[in-house]
């Protein structure tokens, strides 16, 4: 029994201070990402969420360049990028994606510049890797309060506009008719998104922040038809994925003869991806069943035949 225990929790796991920091930050980030992620998926803004990750990356590398803490850059430029996307954005979906793409292109350009200046300036090595893929095991413990506070602010923002945001997601016109300031509510959401992406960039890297944002949320939305439950479920999945990811990453150090551990980000993303695919199975089976029954001329039990 003891052997099974040590196989799962390699020695020193619970005692290691880095692990404690990683688990705390991972959990906090997962919750904030899950909540903003549910709204992101509902609003069809996965691209925007991903683009903000790259914008954050530009911010992080810029911050490194001028010697600021990366988190300031991640969140700072993320907020600017979100505001820009909101301002340029148009109502039509494709126009909005284009605007997102343009901001993204500009951010990538900035990233290129900052990283180039950083590496030619002879400063930190591995800067690119850290910005893009995260540093959850190497983050200082002092960052935890900052993450907690920023995360709380983002969540408070979403909570404040919860109902108007839902209604305007269903229909902007209905919301406007009810007196909701649709642009303002949308902006609050974008800013919360920017903060959330910035924080998860710190944990698992700018590029992979999308996984914690979209994955648990999309999975939860496949499983339940009530927003409240979707939020709870997404948080659960996100936190589970991130803790399990930390555990596996820690353990992987002990696998095999070479002591090169696999990165946390890899495990978290893999878990999230598998969860999403698994959640699709019940729906796929129902659809297949519906197809078979339709072929037999019978309406499936729970299927609605559109009038």
């Amino acid at each position, binding site marked *: 029994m003891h052997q099974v225990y040590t196989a799962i929790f390699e020695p020193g796991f619970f005692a290691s201070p880095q692990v404690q920091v990683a688990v705390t930050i991972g959990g906090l980030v997962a919750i904030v990402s899950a909540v903003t992620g*549910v709204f992101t998926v*509902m609003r069809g803004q996965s691209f925007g969420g991903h683009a903000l990750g790259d914008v954050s990356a530009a911010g992080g590398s810029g911050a490194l360049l001028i010697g600021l803490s990366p988190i300031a850059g991640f969140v700072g430029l993320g907020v600017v990028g979100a505001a820009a996307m909101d301002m340029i954005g148009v109502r039509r979906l494709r126009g909005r994606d284009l605007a997102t793409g343009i901001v993204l292109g500009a951010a990538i350009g900035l990233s290129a510049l900052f990283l180039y200046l950083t590496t030619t300036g002879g400063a930190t090595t591995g800067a690119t890797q850290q910005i893009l893929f995260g540093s959850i095991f190497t983050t200082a413990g002092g960052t935890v309060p900052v993450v907690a506070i920023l995360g709380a602010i983002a969540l408070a923002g979403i909570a*404040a506009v919860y*109902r108007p945001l*839902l209604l305007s997601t269903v229909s902007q016109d209905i919301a*406007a008719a009810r007196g909701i300031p649709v642009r303002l509510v949308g902006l609050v959401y974008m800013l919360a998104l920017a903060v959330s992406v910035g924080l998860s960039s710190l944990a698992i890297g700018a590029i992979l922040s999308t996984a914690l944002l979209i994955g648990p949320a999309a999975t939860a*939305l*496949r499983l339940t038809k009530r927003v409240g*439950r979707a939020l709870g479920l997404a948080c659960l999945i996100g936190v589970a994925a991130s803790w399990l990811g930390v555990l596996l990453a820690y353990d992987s150090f002990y696998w095999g003869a070479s002591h090169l551990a696999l990165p946390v980000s890899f495990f978290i993303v893999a878990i999230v991806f598998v969860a999403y695919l698994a959640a699709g199975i019940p729906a796929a089976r129902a659809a297949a069943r519906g197809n078979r029954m339709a072929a037999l001329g019978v309406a499936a039990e729970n299927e609605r035949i559109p009038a």
Partner: protein
Amino acid sequence: MTDNASAETTSPTILDVESVSVTLSGRRILDEVSFTIGAGEFTGLIGPNGAGKTTLLRVILGLQRPGSGGVSVLGRPRSPRNQPIGYVPQKVLLDPDMPMRAKDLVALGADGNRYGFRLRSADRNDAVREMLHAVDADRFADARVGTLSGGEQQRVLIAQALISRPRLLLLDEPLANLDLHSGQEIVGLLARIAREQQIAVLLSAHEMNPLLPVMDRVVYVAGGRAASGPTAEIVTSEVLSRLYGHHVEVLHVHGRVLVVAGEAAGTDPAAARIASAGMG
């Protein structure tokens, strides 16, 4: 310019549209449109497709700024923050996996403009249930709104608009997606609620016959111009010809109204072209 029939409204004026003109992409869509609607009045906004009905509704909602003229609701200039209006858009594009059941959407209709979360409330749940029952939507109260058919969605949207007890209710082409029977049910339901709760209802349609039994007044829009007043006075060959800018005939056939374009009265009807779908 608008022709206003002389009928006086005795109920308090809810909506006052004054000389509204709108120009879009170089085209004058609406030209000095004026009319008023009083409490409990059921008004049809009739006109051919593209006449500017949706534009007019958007002006009233505050989503489109008129080039000139103005709209006031309950005596105060229209501003989205002042008086919430109940609005039922023609169609709402929703993803099938949007996590919102019909009853959730109706509940949002009640308090969707209040900030923060909602706490559980038995009263509100009762109100939602009642409203869904009133529009005959109990069957699919628990279904995701994205999976509903056009007609089902329409009912849910109407419930969502009514639950907030608006003074003014706007509906954009609600009958377009419905079969005849459902359309009649919806129209009857709306007329009854309008009377009982003294709501001013403005419902746009390109086909006026289903509304004839319940319409108190009509606002007929064509050629960018509008005429408003009691149906019998407005839907006449003279008035409509002036609006369209060319001669149209209004025929009454078996209690239905038929609007046809053509030469002066006496011409072979087979040669007449149908100007707007007025066939019952």
